[in-house]
C-alpha cells in the first residue's frame, strides 16, 4: 500500500501493520485465486455449452465457407458505417433501440449482479476463514473480481444471450417476411436503418449497463458480507476503496464497448442473412448467440493480454 503523504508514525496501528503484510504479493495471489475461482467455474461452464454448439455448427460448414462468411461480415460492417441520409430519423431509431435493447435489460443485469456479488463475497470470506488476513480484503477481492471480469465479461456473455438472440430473431423475421426486401425496394438501405442503430445503441448503453452491474455486484457483496457477519460494513467499505486503480475501470469500459460491438454486429449479421422460414430464424438466433459468445471470450483473452500487461 503506497503510504499517503502527511501520514505520521504515530498513526501506525496494528491494523496498518497487517495491511502491509497483506500487500505482499503472495497474499494477493491467494485472495485473487479465491475470487476468480468462482468466475472461472462460471466461464468454463458457459464455454463448454458454446463449444458443443460451435462444434455442431462447424460440422455442417466447410472451412472455405467460414472464410467467405468472414469476408461477408466485413463488407456488412463497412455498410454499417456508411453515412445515413436522414440524420433525424437515425437519431430517433438509436433512441428506440436504446430503450428496446438497453433499458429493458437493466433489471436483469442488476438482479444477476446483486446475487453474483453476494456469492463472490461469501466464497471469498469462506476461503479466508480462520486466516490471519484482514477482513476488509473481502471487500477488496469482491470489488476487483466484479470490476475486472464479472461485470464486463460475464454480463456481456449474458447479454449476448439476451440481446443477441433478440436482434437475430427480429432481423431474421424481417428477412423471411420480406420486410427487408420492402425497405430495399423503397430505396432505403436496410443495413443503415436497421443495423446501424442497434450497434450504436449497444455501444453507447452497454457501458452504462456494466457500470450498474458493477455497483449492483458490490452492493450485493456488501449486503451478504454484513448480513452474514463475515465483515462489518466499515471493513467492507474500506476494502472496496483499498488500492483502487482507475485504469482498471477504464479497462473494463473498453472491454465492454468492444463486446457491445461484437454482440450487435455478429447477431445482426446472422439475423440479416437468414434464408428460409421460421425454423431458420431460430437457427440464426442460436448461431448469433454462439458466435458472439466465442468472439467475446477470444477477444477478452487478447484484450487482457494487451491492456493489463
Amino acid at each position, binding site marked *: 500500500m503506497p503510504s499517503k503523504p502527511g501520514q505520521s508514525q504515530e498513526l501506525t496501528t496494528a491494523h496498518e501493520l497487517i495491511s502491509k503484510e497483506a500487500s505482499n504479493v503472495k497474499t494477493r495471489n491467494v485472495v485473487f485465486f479465491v475470487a476468480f475461482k468462482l468466475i472461472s467455474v462460471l466461464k468454463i461452464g458457459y464455454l463448454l455449452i458454446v463449444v458443443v454448439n460451435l462444434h455442431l455448427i462447424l460440422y455442417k460448414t466447410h472451412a472455405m465457407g467460414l472464410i467467405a462468411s468472414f469476408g461477408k461480415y466485413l463488407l456488412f460492417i463497412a455498410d454499417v458505417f456508411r453515412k445515413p441520409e*436522414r440524420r433525424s*430519423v437515425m437519431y430517433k431509431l438509436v433512441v428506440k433501440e436504446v430503450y428496446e435493447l438497453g433499458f429493458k435489460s437493466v433489471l436483469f443485469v442488476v438482479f444477476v449482479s446483486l446475487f453474483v456479488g453476494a456469492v463472490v463475497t461469501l466464497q471469498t470470506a469462506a476461503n479466508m476463514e480462520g486466516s490471519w488476513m484482514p477482513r476488509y480484503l473481502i471487500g477488496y477481492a469482491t470489488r476487483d473480481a466484479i470490476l475486472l471480469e464479472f461485470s464486463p465479461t460475464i454480463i456481456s456473455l449474458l447479454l449476448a444471450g439476451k440481446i443477441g438472440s433478440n436482434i437475430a430473431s427480429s432481423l431474421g*423475421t*424481417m428477412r423471411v*417476411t*420480406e*420486410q427487408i*426486401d*420492402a425497405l*430495399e*425496394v*423503397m*430505396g*432505403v*438501405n436496410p443495413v443503415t436503418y436497421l443495423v446501424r442503430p442497434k450497434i450504436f445503441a449497444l455501444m453507447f448503453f452497454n457501458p452504462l449497463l456494466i457500470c450498474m452491474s458493477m455497483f449492483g455486484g458490490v452492493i450485493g457483496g456488501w449486503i451478504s458480507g454484513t448480513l452474514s457477519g463475515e465483515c462489518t460494513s466499515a471493513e467492507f467499505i474500506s476494502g472496496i476503496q483499498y488500492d483502487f486503480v482507475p485504469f482498471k475501470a477504464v479497462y473494463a469500459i473498453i472491454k465492454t464497448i468492444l463486446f457491445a460491438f461484437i454482440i450487435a454486429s455478429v447477431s445482426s449479421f446472422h439475423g440479416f442473412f437468414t434464408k428460409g422460414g421460421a425454423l431458420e430464424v431460430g437457427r440464426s438466433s442460436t448461431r448469433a448467440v454462439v458466435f458472439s459468445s466465442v468472439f467475446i471470450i477470444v477477444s477478452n483473452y487478447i484484450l487482457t493480454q494487451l491492456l493489463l500487461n
Partner: protein
Amino acid sequence: MIEIKNIVKAFATKEVLKEVSFTFEQGKTNLVIGQSGSGKTVLLKCLLGLHEPESGFINFDGLDIVGKSNKNLKGLRKQIGMVFQGGALFDSMNVEQNVLYPLQMFSKLSKEEMLQRVNFCLKRVNLENVNHLFPSEISGGMKKRVAIARAIVLNPKYLFCDEPNSGLDPYTATLIDNLLQEITHEYGMTTVINTHDMNSVMEIGEKILFIKEGRNVWEGTKADIITSENQHLQGFVFSSELFKTIKRKS
C-alpha cells in the same frame, strides 16, 4: 411501360428464368400467371432489381436497369410501389406509421400534409379508423390493403404486386383485384401482378404473360384465353371443373 428481353436468371446451376421477353403496358393491369414455382416471384424481383439477371435487359420507359448499382436506381425506386406476398408490413409500426414511412424517408412535405396523404391513401383502399392498429391486430385482407396504401403513397409510376389475393376469401380477393385495377386506371400506372388465381385472370387480365418452368409460353388478354389453343395454357387455366364447364358452354 416496362420492356424485358431475354431475361435469364439462375441460382447456382438451376436456371429459373429462361429467356423471358415481354412488354408491360402503362395504364393496364399486366398479369404474370403460372403454377407455383414457375418463377413469377423471381421475375418480379428481377424487375425490382433485387435479383440481378444473368443476361437480358430490362427497360423502364427508356431507363435500363440491368447492371446498375443500387445508388443509380435510387431515383427509379421512388417511382416504384411494391405489394409483397405477405404484405411485408413493418411489425414494429402501426398502420399509420407503415404508410407514413416512405413519405418520411423521401418526401419534403410537412407533417400535416404527410398525415393527410396517409389518410387519403388509407381511405382509397377503404380502410378507416385502423390507423393505430398494429399488423398483428388486423386481418389478412386488411394487411394487403395497408400494403397497397403504402405502395401508392408516393404516387408511383410503377406498381408491383406479388400474389395480392393469395390466402384471401373469394369476396375479399375480388375486392382487392378491382381496387388494383381502379388505381391503375386512375393514376395511369404500369401495374404488374403475379397470380395463379384464375378469378383474377378473368377479372382484371388486361395483358397476360403465362410462364411455365421459367419460359414465356403464351401471352394475350383475358378474352384470348378462352379461344386459345395453346396446350400448356389450357392445362393450367382449365384445371378446375368450374372453368371446364364455362368453356364447354361458351
